[in-house]
């Protein structure tokens, strides 16, 4: 089985702890995205799995075999680097043949493997070129080709698409996903681009400051972020997180005191467990609102401060007293700044985070 398992993975650089106690398991055929802001330890985690960094603590298992202390080549993993890391003095064909030559495969086998992968990745035209003579997209494909040309235990990608322009990124995202689908290997992709993670991953691990904040499917990460950090990090425009006081919970509805208004709102019934009068955070996605005609006990009223048309939709920056809110409405809706809108939260779209910033959920 080509799976990856890390337990209590920790990396210290002097006094700095870059990765603390990370536990992850990636099954064969599964794609896990490590997602987080710069410097959160995601690349270090990847490099420890690859064996390019020694672990300070914890264990790495690849294909159920303990890999601590083993060299990168003994781990039999293939990695695609952020800056491609193609061998600059070798042609595309030689770059692709390199890992096979290192395994001392026969020339005939090397040739057929290289040709096969080159066809799959549309590289046959550029086989005799040097990396310098390739476009960004081609370099990326060569890097992927060099990784898939041999049959490794698992794949590691470090920010694979960050250097490509937007159009190319969309195409490559699809291509990589397609290739990975056919290989049924455990794959770890490091990215800081949530769209990349949401589209490519089977599961996402959100990291911050060396800790894993949440591991879940893209759907769960988006709809049920475990804490305020994940809630604010995932989704564009980001989730509205409103400071509030919980006054009452009854029949699945919570009465909540915002700065200047009260609202009665559908929430998870686990909120029952929170004492009335506690400070909580109300989280509502910008697209979870609908604009209604009249104010009611289940609406929030706010004034339009700034209008940003985004094409298919319009992003409104709204103010409720000192509190800023982002609301996305359809482009057909005509609004003007200074107008007061009454916003109703769509059913079961409101999340409550407790005083420690954790999602309250049954």
């Amino acid at each position, binding site marked *: 089985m080509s799976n990856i398992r890390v337990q209590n993975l920790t990396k210290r650089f002097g006094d700095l702890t870059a990765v603390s106690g990370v536990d992850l398991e990636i099954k064969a055929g599964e794609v896990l995205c490590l997602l987080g802001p710069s410097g959160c330890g995601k690349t270090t985690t990847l490099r420890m799995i690859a064996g390019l960094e020694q672990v300070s603590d914890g264990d790495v298992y690849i294909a159920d075999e303990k890999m601590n202390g083993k060299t990168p080549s003994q781990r039999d993993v293939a990695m695609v680097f952020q800056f491609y890391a193609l*061998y600059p003095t070798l042609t595309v064909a030689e770059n692709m043949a390199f890992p096979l030559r290192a395994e001392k495969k026969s020339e005939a086998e090397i040739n057929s493997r290289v040709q096969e992968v080159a066809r799959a990745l549309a590289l046959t035209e550029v086989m005799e070129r040097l990396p310098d003579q390739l476009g960004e997209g081609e370099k990326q494909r060569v890097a992927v080709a060099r990784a898939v040309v041999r049959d490794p235990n698992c794949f590691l990608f470090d920010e694979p698409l960050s250097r490509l322009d937007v159009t190319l990124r969309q195409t490559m995202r699809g291509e990589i996903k397609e290739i990975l689908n056919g290989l049924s290997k455990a794959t770890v992709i490091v990215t800081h681009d949530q769209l990349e993670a949401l589209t490519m991953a089977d599961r996402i691990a959100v990291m911050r400051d060396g800790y894993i904040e949440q591991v879940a499917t893209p759907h769960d990460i988006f709809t049920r972020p475990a804490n305020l950090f994940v809630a604010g990090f995932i989704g564009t425009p980001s989730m509205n997180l409103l400071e509030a006081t919980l006054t009452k919970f009854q029949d699945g509805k919570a009465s909540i005191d915002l700065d200047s208004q009260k609202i009665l709102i559908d929430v998870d019934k686990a909120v029952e467990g929170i004492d009335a009068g506690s400070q909580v955070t109300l989280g509502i996605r910008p697209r979870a609102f609908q604009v209604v005609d009249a104010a009611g006990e289940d609406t929030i009223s706010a004034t339009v401060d700034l209008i940003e048309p985004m094409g298919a939709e319009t992003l409104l920056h709204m103010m409720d007293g000192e509190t800023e809110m982002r609301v996305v409405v359809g482009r057909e809706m005509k609004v003007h700044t200074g107008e007061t809108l009454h916003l109703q939260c769509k059913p079961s779209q409101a999340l409550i985070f407790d005083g420690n910033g954790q999602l309250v959920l049954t």
Partner: protein
Amino acid sequence: MFFKKKDRGIREAGWDRTLITGVVGMVYFAPVFWIILNAFKTRQDGLATPPKLFFTPSMDNFFNVFYRITDAGDHVATGMGLYFFNSIFAAGAGVLLALVIGTLAAYGFSRYPLRGNDTYLFVILTTRMLPPIVVIIPIFLMFRVTGLSGSYIGIILLYAMFNLAFSVWMMKSFFDELSTDVEDAARLDGINEIKVFFKICIPQLTAGLAATAVFALILTWNEFLFALLLTGNDTRTVPVAMARAMGGQLGVDYGLLSAIITLFLIPVFVVTYMLQNHLLRGVTFGTVKK
């Protein structure tokens, strides 16, 4: 203006700039040109005032570099052939040794930094901060005690040491420019550390190696002081022999001296010419963003 103004941007220099550059170049080249001309002149032509630009070339000086005619009319070898060999051998071997050790050391300093890495590098550089004359006495004594004085091994070791600091510093800056990701990729592709160095790093550094070799070679080729004191009759290099050739019975024989210098220029010229493409890339390495 007679010429249409071309659009701005990168283009070949106009005739005016080419001319100015040419004139400046001529000023620099004039002494070399004078020496080369002089080598082909007879003694009379060589000492003529004003200097002659047009004359009947003579190969006598070149003949005299290698053979001396005795009063009896016999041809006696001057040993200059050996001195040329000595120069090529000592400088070549010294530079090669410095390059090998320097490259290995630079790789270490760049990829496996020690605690206080910069201090070590600084200490290495201090070996070149003193003028050679300051260290010549202790080195001379060391060579006397160890018996290295006058031997090929001695002068080669000395030249290697002489170039080591420079090689380490220069090669380290080239290694620092290389992406370590490429080396990591090679490690993941399954090759060992020794192959990472030889198959991945070194092929990327041919330009840097060439540049370092040429600079070191030029410094070593012209070295006089150490060679004067530490080589013997059999291991004497050309600069020392040249100095000896200056004191003749009839005053300085400029023709002979010019012929030696002209010959002396050839090897270093050939090496530089052969490596010039690498050299330009080596010198500009890292200054142009890739």
